[in-house]
């Protein structure tokens, strides 16, 4: 039986690539777009996009956050969903943009755009009902969900479900699975000792979980944990959920 199309399944979506993915992990962005296109969607990537403003917002610089976020507001004129392959950026846009633009002339537009923001894993599972054959070898995988995806967007179950539905993949739970990896944007630079202790514990827990790799739908966490793992000697690294899913389900069509 073919997947049941959601009544709200769109034909077109916007893709907001996020600044981290854009510069550091572009292949994950390409994989996410390929996955969406393979499901029959037209994916629109406004070339004017840059960043959701989160770095400035969480650093206590709302004016700068607003000016960067404002530059994104006009990029999504059609009423299509805005798919964001990162829980924390999606959380910033969906939850904090309305607050950031409160009492400004852009508030109504910010609220309207924020309402269309959807996190990638959530969209793939719950809107597209993503269900593809797993072509990979049997393996064990851990899922790391960003705190924003877990607590602001409530979409951690989507990442887990997408991994669990692959026939040859067993999802394993590392110790203290829900604990933060220690990234926190500027926190990693401002409090390197504490952040370093957190990411060391996270990396160790993932390695001890029995998984051969871990996946996450958040570029910040991925760069943080892989950065730590890269200092070690074990060939263990994580990948973006989109890359993992694309690879397991047959690559490009």
């Amino acid at each position, binding site marked *: *039986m*073919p*997947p049941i199309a959601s009544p709200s399944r769109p034909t077109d979506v916007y893709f907001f690539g996020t600044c981290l*993915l*854009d*510069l550091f*992990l*572009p292949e994950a962005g*390409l994989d996410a*777009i*390929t996955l969406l*296109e*393979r*499901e*029959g969607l037209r994916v629109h*990537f406004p*070339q004017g*996009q*840059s960043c959701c403003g989160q770095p*400035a*917002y*969480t*650093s*206590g*610089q709302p004016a*700068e956050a607003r*000016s*960067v976020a404002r*530059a994104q507001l006009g990029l999504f004129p059609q009423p299509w969903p805005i798919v964001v392959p990162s829980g924390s950026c999606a959380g910033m846009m969906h939850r904090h943009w309305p607050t950031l633009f409160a009492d400004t002339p852009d508030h109504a537009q910010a609220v309207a755009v924020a309402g269309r923001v959807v996190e990638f894993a959530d969209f793939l599972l719950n809107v597209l009902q993503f*269900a*593809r*054959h797993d072509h990979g070898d049997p393996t064990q995988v851990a899922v790391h969900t960003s*705190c924003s995806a*877990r*607590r*602001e967007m409530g979409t951690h179950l989507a990442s887990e479900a997408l991994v669990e*539905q692959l026939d040859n993949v067993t999802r394993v739970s590392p110790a203290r699975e*829900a604990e*933060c990896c*220690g*990234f926190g*944007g*500027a*926190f*990693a*630079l*401002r*409090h*390197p*000792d*504490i*952040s*370093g202790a*957190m*990411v060391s514990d996270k990396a160790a827990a993932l390695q001890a979980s029995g998984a051969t790799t871990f996946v996450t739908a958040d570029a910040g966490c991925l760069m943080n944990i892989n*950065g730590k793992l890269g*200092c070690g000697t074990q060939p263990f690294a994580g990948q973006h959920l989109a890359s993992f899913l694309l690879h397991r389900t*047959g690559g*490009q*069509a």
Partner: protein
Amino acid sequence: MSTHALTRHPTPSFKAQSHAAVNNPDLRQSFGGAMDFLQAKRASQFPDPEGFAELRRLSEAVRRRCLAKLPDLLVQLETQLTANGIHVHWAETPDEANALIHGLIAARKGRLAVKGKSMVSEEIELNAYLEARGVTAIESDMGEYIVQLAGEKPSHIIMPAIHKTKADIAALFHQHIPHAPYTEDVDALIQLGRNALREHYRQADVGISGVNFAVAETGTLCLVENEGNGRMCTTLPDLHIAITGIEKVVEKLTDIVPLYAILPRSATGQAITTYFNLISAPRQPDEKDGPREVHLVLLDNGRSQAYADEQLRQTLQCIRCGACMNHCPVYRRIGGHAYGTVYPGPIGEIISPHMLGLEATRDLPTASTLCGACSDVCPVNIPIPDLLIRLRQEAARPPSDMPLHPLQGQGASYRLTTAWVWRLWAAVYGHPVGYRLFSWCATRFRRLTPRRQGGWTAHRTPLIPAAQSLHEQLQRRRPTAPAAPESHRP
């Protein structure tokens, strides 16, 4: 007794203290184990997320309603307590509160005070104040007693001695309690401590306690405790002095029901505490025990500042359960002392700036990844990450943008260079042409990226941009054809 003052003269460097703490393997291990234990205990009390959500909704509603009426409720509380024969005193600052309390004790020529656990008394550093004036104050909560013997401060608001090992406590008791043998047997240690304290209860001139809830409707002081020491302190000596913050008032006796249901569950994972004291009056003529005089000191110490701002007022919803620190990944790794304030962890990060000013506490709101584990478990739903972001904004506020009613220490983190870095960032990321130019340079000259990237590379490999940005790659890319539907799932 150590007299280093943590509250009113916070140590200048959170960074230095957290650095030392995070590199102390014993501390890391003991806090890690304790936090795992406390998290599991709390989780066992809330097996059903819906049940927790409902109880939290009720508790939050009580706290919000009572704070909305706070000025009226405080007047009502004073009237009702006075009618019940309890004397009410108001203190704006720690110094005023200390002087009031010392004055009450001195007027009765008191020399020895026994204390139930009270974080507000820690906040004003009452013990040191009394000590300097010839009044000995003995902590009677077992954790507080241990910390006092060690000449330290509590490292947790509910479990003050959580940083101490059995061996630490055995050595302390052996050293400080006359004739105490060295033992690491927990029951034996507790018995040694209790016997030593019992002597103090007999001799004390005054009992000092905190208050968990002050009920305006009935004029009742509620005290939540497990050891019975709170009851001893508030019934044996002739004089009982309670001290609490002005935000602890609730409107009605029935308001206690959800708050007391959620407090011990959140704090220690108990459905109910061993003791729940309701103190409504001094000893009556026909009664054989109880204090002859009861006083309540209501302390402001920056609470009015938080109260004046609608968003920051949420800070005062706190019922001091400590669940936020039990679940905080930062607190877990540095322990309570590294914060340098009486209230550590997430609640300390949002309340200390009101008590001490942002100048002295500006690092605290930054000591969080904003992961939200704290607000997830908060029994009164305080949006701690949002308040941290707000305090970061207030600390970084430029001198040209000062509001009419400033927060103490506002703008303390403002630096012209930082402001310009953010302005430059906004100029680049806020303009497509600027961003394109920046990302073109960053990717083309990626080999020139510094390999030492400050705090990042202290624990990680350096971040190197990709050869081409996603923007660029997408300009040349052709869409992928749709795949045929698969019958993967029924």
